[in-house]
């Protein structure tokens, strides 16, 4: 993997310009915790590496009451995990980060890099989608904000244009809400066989009623995906075990898992059903108490 030219970009403008110049032969490198392995294995062989990890402007976590949370694209997983404000206001995000790969990977890998690699087994993507996140994509002369769930096109494929980088993640504030990300893997450090992130908002006037819910599943489709049918079933309803069970069943029917070393399709559906059920229950508890 020595056959590439290396450009360290000092800021976003330079990074975008370089990406634009070299087009599809170029690849942006942030933490590279997936990219470097893929290059070593010769799965991809870019001719130009635009190293954006050094752009310190994109390493930040900011929170205001009105605006919510903003995370720079080059913030490391570890910073998100350790952030006091995230622990306080968006606990499920910090909690998820604690279980993502291993400490050393979280120390170097960035949230933007994780999303842009578009691995179907990402733990971050379902969590952020559940939290209603939007991402800012910056290009040479462009800047657009899209909902994260619209960011993914296929496994390892996103809507990013060649000159664009993911510069920011924005999560709106919410009240009477709670959520949890949970995953099933053979070992704690493994990629998820199935992961589910559920975020639930209760009705302010009636705490038994579900005002809004997002159920997002990872690893079971080419891209992280919501079960809108299951969400609709619960939305506006009084939450109870029978309803949750029904929703979980529906959610598990909404996915298209592929059989692989981690299990058969049937097994993955079974696991998805159990995880959806567990996360809705826990999200409801957290929404009441957080």
């Amino acid at each position, binding site marked *: 993997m020595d056959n590439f030219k290396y450009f360290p970009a000092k800021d976003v403008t330079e990074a975008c310009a370089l990406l634009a110049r070299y087009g599809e032969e170029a690849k942006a490198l942030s933490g590279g915790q997936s990219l470097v392995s893929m290059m070593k294995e010769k799965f991809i062989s870019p001719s130009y590496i635009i190293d954006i990890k050094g752009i310190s402007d994109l390493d930040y976590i900011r929170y205001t009451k009105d605006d919510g949370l903003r995370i720079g694209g080059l913030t490391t997983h570890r910073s998100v995990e350790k952030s006091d404000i995230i622990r306080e206001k968006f606990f499920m995000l910090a909690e998820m980060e604690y279980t993502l790969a291993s400490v050393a990977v979280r120390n170097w890998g960035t949230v933007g890099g994780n999303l842009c690699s578009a691995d179907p087994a990402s733990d971050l993507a379902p969590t952020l989608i559940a939290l209603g996140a939007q991402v800012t994509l910056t290009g040479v002369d462009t800047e657009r904000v899209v909902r994260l769930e619209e960011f993914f096109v296929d496994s390892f494929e996103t809507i990013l244009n060649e000159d664009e980088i993911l510069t920011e993640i924005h999560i709106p504030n919410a009240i009477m809400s709670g959520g949890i990300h949970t995953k099933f893997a053979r070992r*704690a450090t493994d990629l998820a066989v199935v992961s589910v992130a559920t975020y639930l908002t209760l009705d302010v006037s009636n705490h038994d009623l579900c005002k809004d819910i997002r159920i997002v599943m990872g690893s079971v489709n080419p891209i992280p995906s919501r079960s809108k049918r299951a969400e609709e079933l619960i939305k506006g309803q009084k939450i109870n075990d029978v309803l949750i069970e029904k929703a979980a069943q529906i959610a598990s029917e909404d996915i298209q898992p592929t059989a692989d*070393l981690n299990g058969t399709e049937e097994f993955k559906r079974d696991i998805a059903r159990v995880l959806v059920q567990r996360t809705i229950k826990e999200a409801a508890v957290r929404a009441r108490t957080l």
Partner: protein
Amino acid sequence: METNNKYEYIGKSERNVNGIEKVTGAAKYCSDMELSRMLYGKVKRSPYPHARIISIDTSKAKELPGVKVVIVGDEKTCPHRFGAGVADEYVLARDKVLYVGDAVAAVAAETEDIAQDAVDLIEVEYEELEPVFDGDQAFSKNPPAILHEDLKSYKTIRSVPPRFDENRPNVFNYFRIRRNNAEEAFKEADIVLENRFEVAMIHHVQMEPHCGVAKVDGTGRLIVWGTTSKPYGMHKDISESRGMASSAVRVIVPTHVGGAFGGREPKAEQIAASLVLAQKGHPKRPVKMRFTREEQLSTTTTRARYIVEIKTGAKKDGTLVANAMRTILVGGAYAGTGYLTARNGSFGPAANYKIPNFSLDAYGVYTNQRMAGAFRGFGNAETLWGMESNMDMLAEALNIDPLEFRLMNCIDEGDLNAFQEKMHSVGAKECLQAAARDIEWGKKPEKPKEPHLKMGKGIALGNKYSLVPTASACFIKVHPDGLVELRTSTVELGQGSNTIFSQMISEEFKIPVSMVRVLNPDTDITPFDLGTASSRSTFNMGNAIRKACADAKKQLFELAATELGVAEDVLETADSRVFVKDFPEKSLHIKDLFIPMVIGGYTLKEGAEILGKATYYLPGVMPDPETGASERPASFYMFVAQAAEVEVDTQTGKIRVTKMVTANDCGKAINPMMVEGQQDGGVLSMGIGSALLEEVITDNGVMLNPQFADYKIPTTLDCPDCDNYKSAIIETAHREGPWGAKGVGEGTMVSSAPAIANAIYDAIGIRFHEIPITPEKVLRALKEKNQESLG
């Protein structure tokens, strides 16, 4: 822990004598070796499980700049086959490839990358042949494929020769035991249970991949460094496969080898040697051959799939009356040490219980997979997985507590085992009692937090023999400054042999461990040892060390007696001095026995050096070919009992080992900390891994999970917390063992899987017949059980 004893160094948890290098990063492994002008090797491997080689075109590879040598399997490169028991393997395949990954050609080049590019340029034309993977099919009288048509003409080893089967062409070894008449005795049993159990193929996962470095010295001798655990075995393989005089080869093993666990067959070293020898002219450049992680996981030896059919009969009162077994080691393309594993996996079941009627037929068969060879436990974790599962089922059928049932029947001092050998140094009962105590047997597990979590406890008994015939030799050199040096071919693989040998010598010479040095194995310098295998080093090399120390001390005292004007037999040594036992002030320093010479150095007037030497040789008695009867089929037996507590998530099938305990009878712990180290690794990494996580998954002979992401060994989070894991050391001194010691490492995982599976049964009432027990298998079984109970 420190055990009570009267010794100064024996029984103490001394620090590892090679530890400073290991914790500071200074330790050099074979893979860290660099020689000037070194070339790097890479292997061209077969993509087919079974195929005839039609042609190999290496012309493009040879033209690539930086490529220095390209070799293929031919008369010149590999004139003779080699192998531990059956000479069935060439260094590079000739005529036929027998598994995906079989080496067909090799390249040495200026860099690894160039070598790899060259390998990719080699074109091989094959004619595909039908493969066989399934154990039952391979074993059959009319198998879909015969791997070695000329098996009968292959050279076999004289000591413990393999036995082929006239009617079953893929069988590379057969062994049998007949004690009284099991079939007749089943008629007298009140309950007979017959079951079939299997274990999946697993890998050792040594952290250092295999590596060999070879060079030819100025006199034309071949020198090979390697990661082997058997320097003399490798020496034989290298010299015999090339028809070289044995003295023309020198094998060196660096002080640091990154783990073995039985899996160090010397293929990388063999290829490195061939790549050196194939170079034209002089001087030849050294070659390093290091396997990648993927090569390590996908082409090197494994623990075989094993089929264990077992039928056990007992009286109502719980007395075992008969046991009959048939075991098949589903081996690979070459027998390797697997030829012996297939045979010796019968020792565990033969010596676990008092069973008057016992029959066993053990087979090893070839299939089109990579070689299956030695793996911690040497067949016994596999056979005992069957036996200890069946015993639990029998206990339940008899309505007897599984612990009680085992205590009633377990073998004891003086009992006859299935070989009709009178057992000595048996810690079975004490191990069971210790494991039961530590797991709090009889006390229900804590109530789980959630209703879908179920908990249970299980226990299992095991044992591991150490092999005969066996021999270890060593030299003990006493340096003029008092330092005592051990020259041994035992390999320090991480198990701590250098440390415990140092403690033994410290005890004999009454010097601190820091005054002892252990040289790394080097066939020019260190004498014969059978190999660092079978948990044999403490016992065998330990005995050789004691004898060699006595020899060196005798020489020391002869010299000192003259100097001090006393008789030899009144002398003793301590702190690098020799003194009169009753008048310690009458003494001299060891250096005063040597004469300092002009220009430098020291000499003795006679005898050159104080150099003790000894062999410990234990031939044993070869079992009778028809009945297996033998007074001494093994050196000794190590007993072990293990117990587990598990939590099963009945919604996801996930199993967590919440508690694990082990009790091991090692005779005498020379270094308790290192005995614990063996226990920890055997139970926590390999025991839990093999029971729940690990499996080499293949499709048409291709390994589908040759990365650490998919071949799953336990991490810190897969093992129980420190407080929930206990290891007990049981010391049942062996009359022939040095300070009573036997061994420990091989016995540490032989009862882990059945203990865990028995706990799973206790938790959810489902009996698994195959490991690993994965969440999907659990969930499927739970569904089936629910349907049954509904139906």
